[in-house]
């Protein structure tokens, strides 16, 4: 029995790869395994080559594996495309007749996937046949697959459920009778499987849980999943999800709604965020609470729309003209995405600043099972909002020790609400006075930064002062964790909040260490530069990856062993 197995289902867009992969992941979590699943897909709706790769194990897993023990190829192109991804001793299951392949190389197994699918009703059911085959190879029982299929199609009606169940059964029976290889049996370790969800979904749940009532965005991969999840639940929670005409409208709508007194946000990726920069600056100037989820993908420009990168760290830190305080959260897991969303809303309202949540395609769209965090954590704290009965003449931008002024909500207090993108005096009207300018700049930048710096989410630190200390932010948390478990004398520091930068915690974690390396999904080593600037620590190098794909722990381990610090 294996304690871990990696499975890739691959084919062209439109073949139901994600649906099959999700069923597989659910089959494993429902039957007592842990999973981590990545999606690798092209920016097209039909054709090309996509895959969904599931890592299933008896212990929790938080990163993908480089290679797969079993690959199921649903079209001919996938056979070649996934050739190098087959692990030593692994098998690739393919439909030799359908793909016109006469001689099967070693490690390739024929299965009449499409003939079986046809028996169940048509080629549409090939993905359920694949699920049945995998159930036979790895679970040795059909019940797990049957339950999963029933659940998946419960809402789609009897016909779909029946035919998919038949397809899965046919795949199972064929594999049980014809593929005699017990090498892939996966042990189970029953546990409270918790939830199976992706980072974007967890983030969206955090948004709903935080009491967000208005989400405006323009569709953009890989951030759209957040909007989808919020929209799914909008009616129940009384949330308006508005598809804006562009990202400029999206951010200005979120600001307008927030000004009018509701928790509001927007979400996008790099190109859309570029369009939002003026709005970000407006939120800061008007001291209107604003939350933006920035789900990174490789750029510049359109880049790789459906792939992953951590290229926009410095962009997120510096976006928007002028000088102002902000908070930037960089969650590393679905749990941290949920918490970051709730914290971001509290920070935005308490300090009346923009709060960014910086994630990426890999974290946002990879699925894993987690024990869901305490849903009552971070209860909403709306900061200083004026209640009815307050003095009508309360000034919107009144000076204060911490830079935060009481905020009137239009129509909900005797005081009038004011917001001005021009430099303004305490009452909110335009001014050109030098001394007012100085005090307002200090209010928006220095005083608020001091407050934010007192509430930084603490970094995760493992083996502080180890011979080699790795540094990362955002989506690399799982990779850092697994790398340190596998590599000798290695520890890590991971930042769930990168701004304000926790310099003291960094110095404490890195004290006495032999070498400091950053692990980043970018080419520029942006985190290394930030650490140098903010703490004075010079990293000896960086393990960098910028091919649009996520790290795997073994890549980082081998980079450490090679002493290669410039690329994975």
């Amino acid at each position, binding site marked *: 029995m294996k304690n871990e197995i990696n499975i890739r289902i691959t084919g062209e867009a439109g073949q139901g790869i994600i649906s099959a992969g999700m069923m597989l992941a659910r089959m494993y979590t429902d039957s007592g395994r842990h999973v981590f699943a990545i999606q690798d897909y092209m920016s097209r709706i039909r054709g090309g080559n996509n895959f969904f790769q599931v890592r299933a194990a008896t212990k929790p897993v938080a990163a993908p594996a480089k290679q797969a023990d079993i690959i199921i190829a649903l079209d001919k192109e996938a056979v070649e495309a996934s050739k190098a991804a087959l692990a030593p001793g692994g098998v690739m299951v393919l439909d030799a007749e359908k793909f016109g392949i006469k001689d099967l190389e070693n490690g390739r197994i024929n299965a009449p996937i499409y003939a079986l699918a046809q028996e169940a009703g048509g080629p549409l059911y090939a993905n359920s046949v694949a699920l049945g085959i995998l159930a036979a190879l790895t679970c040795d029982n059909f019940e797990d697959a049957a339950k999963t299929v029933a659940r998946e199609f419960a809402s789609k009606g009897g016909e779909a459920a029946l035919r998919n169940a038949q397809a899965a059964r046919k795949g199972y029976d064929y594999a049980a009778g014809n593929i005699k290889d017990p090498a892939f049996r996966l042990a189970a370790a029953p546990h409270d499987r918790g*939830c*199976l*969800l992706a980072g974007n*979904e967890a983030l969206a*749940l955090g948004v*709903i*849980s*935080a*009491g967000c*009532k*208005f989400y*405006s965005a323009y569709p953009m991969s890989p951030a759209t999943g957040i909007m989808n999840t919020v929209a*799914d*639940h909008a*009616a*129940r*929670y*009384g949330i*308006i999800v*508005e598809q*804006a*005409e*562009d990202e*400029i*409208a999206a951010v*200005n*709508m*979120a*600001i*307008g*709604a927030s*000004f*009018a*007194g*509701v*928790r*509001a946000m927007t979400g996008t990726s790099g190109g859309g965020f570029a369009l939002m920069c*003026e*709005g970000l600056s*407006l939120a800061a100037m*008007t001291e209107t609470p604003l939350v933006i989820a920035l789900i990174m993908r490789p750029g510049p420009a359109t880049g790789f729309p459906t792939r992953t990168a951590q290229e926009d760290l410095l962009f997120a830190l510096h976006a928007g003209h002028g000088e102002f305080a902000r908070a930037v959260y960089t969650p590393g897991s679905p749990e941290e995405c949920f918490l970051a969303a709730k914290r971001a809303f509290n920070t935005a309202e308490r300090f009346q600043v923009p709060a960014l949540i910086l994630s990426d395609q890999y974290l946002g769209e990879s699925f894993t099972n987690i024990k869901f965090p305490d*849903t009552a954590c971070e*209860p*909403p704290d709306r900061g200083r909002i004026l209640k009815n009965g307050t003095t009508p003449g309360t000034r919107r931008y009144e000076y204060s020790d911490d830079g935060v002024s009481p905020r009137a*909500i*239009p*129509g*909900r*207090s*005797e005081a*009038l*609400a*004011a*917001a*001005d*993108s*021009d430099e303004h005096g305490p009452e*909110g*009207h*335009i001014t050109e006075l030098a001394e007012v300018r100085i005090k307002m700049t200090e209010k928006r930048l220095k005083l608020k930064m001091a407050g934010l710096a007192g509430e930084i989410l603490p970094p995760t630190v493992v083996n502080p002062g180890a011979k080699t200390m790795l540094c990362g932010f955002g989506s690399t948390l799982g990779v850092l964790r697994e790398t340190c478990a596998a590599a000798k004398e290695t520890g890590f520091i991971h930042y769930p909040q990168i701004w304000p930068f926790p310099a003291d915690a960094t110095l404490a974690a890195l004290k006495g260490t032999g070498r400091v390396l950053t692990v980043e999904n970018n080419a520029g080593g942006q985190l290394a530069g930030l650490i140098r600037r903010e703490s004075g620590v010079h990293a000896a190098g960086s393990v960098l990856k910028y091919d649009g794909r996520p790290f795997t722990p073994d890549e980082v381990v081998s980079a450490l062993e090679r002493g290669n610090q410039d690329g994975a």
Partner: protein
Amino acid sequence: MEPNDFNSADPVAWCPGCGNFGVQAALKAALAQLGKEPRQLLLVSGIGQAAKMPHYIKANFFNGLHGRALPAAAAAKIANRELTVIVTTGDGDCYGEGGNHFLHNIRRNVDITVIVHDNQIYGLTKGQASPTSEPGMKTKIQPGGVILAPFPPLETALALGCGFVARGYAAEREHLTELILAGIRHKGFSLIDVFQPCVSFNKLNTYEWYARRVYKVGPEHDAADKTAAMALAAQRERLPIGVIYSGAKPSYGELSGLDGMPPLVDADISNVDINPALADFR
């Protein structure tokens, strides 16, 4: 309420003789007739001379970015449907920088009133062509004269199905007051394009120029007749002012379900139970 109840203490920075004073007076008079208090009103603007208006009227105000008044205003209304939301914008702000928002907020049809101070020139940046400038008008940037075709706001709004399309003239204050009041009372996106002479930079479209061309739409015009409205809007020699088109159509609030809910701003978010949503992922 009296117009003076909406007086602001903020000193006005417009040029003496500016058409904006007429719009300001008409807006105050309309607000007084409407009978709502300053705290029930929200004035939203972008950037430009017209965008300073919210500083000069006592009400809640949001003076945002150039071109971006409409998205902020629409969302504020969505957040609190009890507010009366009025946008004061200009031809550059609304039809140029914010053109995309103009198009799509007519489609969105949130119940807001948009007053466009249309002076056919850029005032705040000192005299460049605007989207509505007359072809041939010479400026420092267009020394050979404007060569772009002017943007037709009324026809554009009509083509997009805007439910309330009107045009006023800053020198016709009482007439403009009526238009503004009708616009506020119309449920949905209301456009009031206002001819507003710029005494400092527009030497072509002066008070005299407008006086020779502007005429009030008479009772013979059926404002519910879209074809007749289009014909009026297309006039270029003589320039009609009045309600060009007015017709009921479902607003965003009705279609989205917002009108049947308590205002979003009043939702209690102190203890949102996420478990029903979480059930999908268990």
